[in-house]
């Protein structure tokens, strides 16, 4: 088994809000190995972005993070000071964000912003920094890299800016790369290019990657393992093959029925939709979080905490008291 880059156990985030305590992330456990891509999938508001921000130590100051274990290559991060965390961020773990249009500072050149992680985390000379910046820009497929260094973000297209963000994230050779919806804001054709580039770079840099997305099409293409999140919890986790081949949580099955499958979905046929809304995460909640939207709900679904149980194969786990029915062909709830 490959070396584990990231091991997370029992990660929770609490945010005080008017009307009580918000629990957007509850007892999340996950691992990422070297060279592996873990996709965290879920609707907006399920806590996937806050999970990634909490891993980076970038939560808003009001939010509180708790974890039984949060280690990067065996080094515990949970108790680290902000100062010590900033030595790790951008260096050993880095992040790519959803909005390439606003994620770069409009007041500084690409070269300046690209150089910052190197200036902060390494002792390279100015010339070496510049050379490395040009090299990284070329590596992410930007032509005329040297002349791009003097340009400002507004002079670049969204796709180019996201490439710059990727170059910036990888410039210090991180062990872990977190990408939060990196292609959502881009054109469809650009999306494919960026995804391809990220997969390629990940192999080359041999880093672990967490890909956060709501797009199951994206997941199918690049993920080794998948964690499905719903209302702050991981409801199902396993290899991509297990999740697509034997989805065991009703929510996962609902999500999968929402995407058209070539050859199986007939034109004009209704794609599935999950009725209802995501529950409020303020205060303590008993039972299955999905109970109110689940077509198969039973009285026992509403009692106690529902634990993850083993599924079809090794590493496949899901959070449901019911036994999975015939896999994959489950009809979409009306």
């Amino acid at each position: 088994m490959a070396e584990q880059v990231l091991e997370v156990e029992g990660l929770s985030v609490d945010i005080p809000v008017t009307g009580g305590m918000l629990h957007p992330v509850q007892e999340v456990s996950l691992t990422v190995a070297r060279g592996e891509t873990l996709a965290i999938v879920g609707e907006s508001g399920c806590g996937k972005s806050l999970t990634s921000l909490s891993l980076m130590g970038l939560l808003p100051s009001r939010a509180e993070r708790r974890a039984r274990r949060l280690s990067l290559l065996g080094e515990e991060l949970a108790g680290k000071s902000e100062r010590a965390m900033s030595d790790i961020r951008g260096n050993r773990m880095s992040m790519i964000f959803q909005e390439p249009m606003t994620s770069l500072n409009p007041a500084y050149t690409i070269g300046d912003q690209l150089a910052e992680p190197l200036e902060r985390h390494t002792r390279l000379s100015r010339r070496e920094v510049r050379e490395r910046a040009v090299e990284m820009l070329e590596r992410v497929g930007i032509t005329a890299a040297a002349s791009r260094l003097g340009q400002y973000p507004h002079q670049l297209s969204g796709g180019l800016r996201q490439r710059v963000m990727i170059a910036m994230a990888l410039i210090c050779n991180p062990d872990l790369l977190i990408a939060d919806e990196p292609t959502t804001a881009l054109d469809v054709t650009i999306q494919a290019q960026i995804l391809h580039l990220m997969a390629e770079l990940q192999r080359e840099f041999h880093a672990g990657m967490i890909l956060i997305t709501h797009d199951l099409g994206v997941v199918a293409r690049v993920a080794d393992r998948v964690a499905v999140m719903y209302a702050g919890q991981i409801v199902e986790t396993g290899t991509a093959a297990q999740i697509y081949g034997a989805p065991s949580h009703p929510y996962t099955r609902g999500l999968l029925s929402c995407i058209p499958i070539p050859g199986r979905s007939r034109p004009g046929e209704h794609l599935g939709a999950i009725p209802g809304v995501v529950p409020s995460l303020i205060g303590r909640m008993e039972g299955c979080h999905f109970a109110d939207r689940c077509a198969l709900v039973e009285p026992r679904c509403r009692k106690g905490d529902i634990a993850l149980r083993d599924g079809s194969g090794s590493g496949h786990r899901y959070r449901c008291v019911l036994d999975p029915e015939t896999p994959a062909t489950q009809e979409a709830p009306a």
Partner: protein
Amino acid sequence: MLAYLLRRLGVAVLVALTVSLITFSMIYLSGDPAVALAGESATEEDIESIRRYYGYDRPILVQYLDWLGRALTGDFGQSHYLKAPVAEVIFERLPTTMLLGACALTFALVLSIPLGVLAAIRPNSLIDRLALTIAVIGQAMPSFWFALTMVLWFGITWRLLPITGSDSWANFVMPSIALGYYVTPAVMRLTRAGMLDVLATDYIRTARAKGLRPHTVLFKHALRNAIIPVVSLAAVQFGFMLGGSIVIETIFAINGLGYLAWESIQRADLPMMQAIVLVLSVFYILLTFLADMLNAWLDPRLRTA
């Protein structure tokens, strides 16, 4: 950028011309300027000769163009009271007022920008509330009353600072504070609001995700963007302060343009008043023009456009 510069320059010139027209027509507010000038005991003949001497008998448009033409070459005529060229007197006094304005602006910025930044970093904290209190009190305090109160305490009771004159740096301490404090609330609020906006942006999150030090994030990435609107405001406020220095200069007997304006008004010295209003207005127009240019230069999106 060049097109923007030229367009902006054109507007500035047009505004300056309009202001000159308004300034020129000021002398007709009191009715016949010759009568006003001649005094109460003048005979009809005296008035007539004054009218001819100063050219008030010509058509108004001719008078305006003549006045404007000479003003453009730096000739604002003769002071009725001081019997000296107006331009000479004004440019003798102008540096004092500029110095006062610069000191006041420096005081205001040094106080308000750090407070605004601190308030934005910790919203609703003690320092935020303190900054807000200073702003609310500052905006409500009449500057002349504040100046007199300072004179009473620092000048008379504790004898720390000289209360009149403009000979040494110590003379400028109280006037600068009295003139500058009124500007601090606006600058502080704008800095705070700007910083709050910028600190919530995606690029600040990116900067933090790179592991940059807090002060790098704050000063290099946040303040650099939040300060852009503050530059414009500071320029505008500098202009206002020069205009408002009349009250402060009168209280502290500072021999600047404001005091000169007050004296001229007391002496009904029309050419002098006209020239002062025009000079200050044109200076303000120049200032806002420069601020816009500086703004365009600070914002790469405008600079490279």
